[in-house]
C-alpha cells in the first residue's frame, strides 16, 4: 500500500485497501431473520435504516458463517443503500469474515496484557496442534486460527474467544486440551466470562 522504494509490500492488506470478496451462493435472509432485522430497524429513525447495517451483517454471519458478495448485495437491497456502502462497512470491521471460516474461529488476544502472560505461546500451541499458520483453517474445516486485539478482560489473561464464546486464563500447555474439549462439547467447553459469583 505504501509506494516508498524501501517499504516492502505487506502480504496482509490493511483495512483501508480493497480486495474483492468471493461471490458465494445466492443469499436471502430467512423470513425469521428478516423479521428480526425489521424489529431492530425500528430502534432508529425511519430514514436511518443504515444504522442497522451492523446488525444485518451479524445476521448474515449467523446464517452463512461468512459474508459473501451475494450477501452484501442482499443486505444493500434490504437496507436501501448501495452494495459499495455495504462492502465499505464489511471490509472495515474485524468481526466480519469475507471468506468461509471453520466451524469454530479461535480468536487469541495478542495485545500487551495477554502477551505478557503467554498469549504468543498460546497461539504457537494452537498453530502446532492444528498444523496451520495464523489466519488459516485446518484441513478438516473445524478450526480457524486468528489473532485479535485487546478483548477487554486483561485480568484474566490469556483470553481466547471461540466464535462468540469466551475462554479465559488459558495456559499454553492447556491449549491442545481445549481443542479436544471443543471438538467434543462445542462452546460448552469454554470457561465463559469469569464469575467468582454463581450465575443464577
Amino acid at each position: 500500500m505504501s509506494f516508498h522504494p524501501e517499504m516492502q509490500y505487506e502480504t496482509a492488506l490493511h483495512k483501508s485497501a480493497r480486495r474483492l470478496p468471493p461471490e458465494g451462493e445466492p443469499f436471502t435472509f430467512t423470513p425469521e431473520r428478516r423479521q428480526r432485522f425489521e424489529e431492530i430497524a425500528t430502534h432508529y429513525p425511519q430514514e436511518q435504516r443504515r444504522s442497522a447495517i451492523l446488525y444485518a451483517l451479524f445476521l448474515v454471519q449467523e446464517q452463512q458463517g461468512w459474508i459473501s458478495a451475494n450477501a452484501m448485495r442482499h443486505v444493500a437491497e434490504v437496507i436501501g443503500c448501495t452494495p459499495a456502502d455495504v462492502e465499505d462497512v464489511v471490509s472495515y470491521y474485524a468481526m466480519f469474515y469475507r471468506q468461509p471460516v471453520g466451524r469454530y474461529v479461535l480468536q487469541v488476544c495478542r495485545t500487551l496484557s495477554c502477551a505478557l502472560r503467554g498469549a504468543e505461546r498460546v497461539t504457537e500451541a494452537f498453530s502446532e496442534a492444528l498444523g496451520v499458520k495464523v489466519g488459516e483453517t485446518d484441513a478438516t474445516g473445524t478450526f480457524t486460527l486468528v489473532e485479535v486485539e485487546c478483548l477487554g478482560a486483561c485480568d484474566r489473561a490469556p483470553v481466547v474467544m471461540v466464535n462468540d464464546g469466551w475462554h479465559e486464563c488459558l495456559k499454553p500447555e492447556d491449549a491442545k486440551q481445549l481443542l479436544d474439549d471443543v471438538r467434543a462439547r462445542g462452546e460448552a467447553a469454554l470457561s465463559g466470562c469469569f464469575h467468582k459469583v454463581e450465575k443464577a
Partner: protein
Amino acid sequence: MDPLLTPHVREPRSYTLDFYLRQDGGYQALRKALGMTPDAIIDEVKKSGLRGRGGAGFPTGMKWQFVDRKTDKPRYICCNADESEPGTFKDHVLMERNPHLLLEGCAIGCYAIGAKVAYIYIRGEFLHVQHVLEEAIAEAYAGGYLGRNILGSGFDCDIYLHRGAGAYEAGEETALIESLEGKRAQPRLKPPFPATAGLYGCPTAVNNVETLCNVPLIVARGGEWYAALGPEKNGGPKLFCVSGHVVRPGTFEGTMHTTVRELIYGHAGGIANGRQLKAVIPGGSSVPVLRPDQIDVPASFDGLMKAGTMLGSAGMIVMDDTTCMVWMAENLLHFYRHESCGKCTPCREGGAWLLNMLRKIERGEGRLRDIELLLSVADNIAGKTLCAFGDAAATPVLATIKQFRDEFEAHVREGRCTCPADWRARQPVAAH
C-alpha cells in the same frame, strides 16, 4: 472509602433490578432528578467536577452544557461502551455486574440534555455483557424506569443497545457516531462538535460507561460531596484496572489519592514470581510508560499529568524485568497499526513504518539511525491527525525510547534481543 460504583459485584444476582432496588436504593436518583430542572442537574454535575472516564478526562458538566438545547432537532446520548483500550476492563465489570447503575445514569443524562433516546454502543465482542444489559433494560421498562411517562413525570426515555463489530477507533466519539450511522468508524473534523451536530446531525453527548455510572451518585448525594472524595479537581470514586505481571490482576475501586505504587503492590499483590518491576503503563496503552522510580504518584488526572504521563482509562499494565521494552513497543504498535482507521496519512502510513522499524530493531537487524528515524516519524504523526489515535500510536515509541533508550541501543549494538523471555513466541514473525 467504601465502594460506590461496585459495592456488590461479588454477590449473586447483583445485576438484577430486584437487587438494585433493595440494596442500592436503586433509581432513587432518577426519581430525584425528575423533580429537578435539567439546568439544576447540569449545575450539580459541574459542581461535582466529574471528568470523563473514557480517557480524555473532559469535564462532563461542561460537555452537557454545550449540547444545543434550543434547537428543534432531537437530542441523543450515546453511551460509549466500546471499551477496547489495551489494559482496560472496568466498563466490562460495571455493565456485567451493575447494569442498572448505567441505565439510571443514561436516563438522568437524557433528562438533563433533553434527549429522549440513548444508544449504548457496546463492542461486538461483549455479547455476554450485551445479554445482561438486554435483560436489565427489559426489567427497567417493566418497572416503569424507562419508556413512557417515567415514574409519572411525563418524561419519556428509550435506551437501545447497538452492537459494534470489532473496531477500536469506534471508541472515538465522532467515529462512534459515524459507526452508529452505519458507516466506517472514521472520525470527523471538529468543529462542529457532537454537542452541536452529532448523531444524524443532531446535538449529541457521547459519554463513557463509568462516567454515566457516576451521575446517579452525584444527583443523589450532591456535587460538593462528590468533589470532596479525592484530590481537588480529581473528585469521585475511580475504577482502576491492573493487569500484567502482578499476583492479583483485577479491577479496584478507590479515590484518586491512591498511588500507582499502592495499586501495584497493595491491591494487586505486587510483582508475581518474585521478580522486580521494570515498567508500568498507568492509563491504557495510549499513555507514556513509567519507570519504577516514578510510581509514587497519585493515580489521578493531574497527578499523572505532572509525572509526564496521563490517567487515561486507568488501565495499569505492569511489566517485570523479563519484559523487553523494544518488544513491548512493537506489540503496541502492531495494535495501533491494525486498528488505524486509515483516514489520515500520517497515522496510516507512519504507523506501518513505526511497526516495521521496531520489528527490525527487535530482531537485531536495526541500525543506530533507526532510533532517530523512529522518533522523527512518531513526531510527524503526533498532533497531525484528525483524532487522538495518532498521538496514541506515537506515544509507545516516543515514551519508551525516552525512558529506555539504552535498551534500544543495546539491541542495535549486539544485533539481537537483549531481554528475551520464555513466555514469548519461540519463532517470532519475520522482520520483513
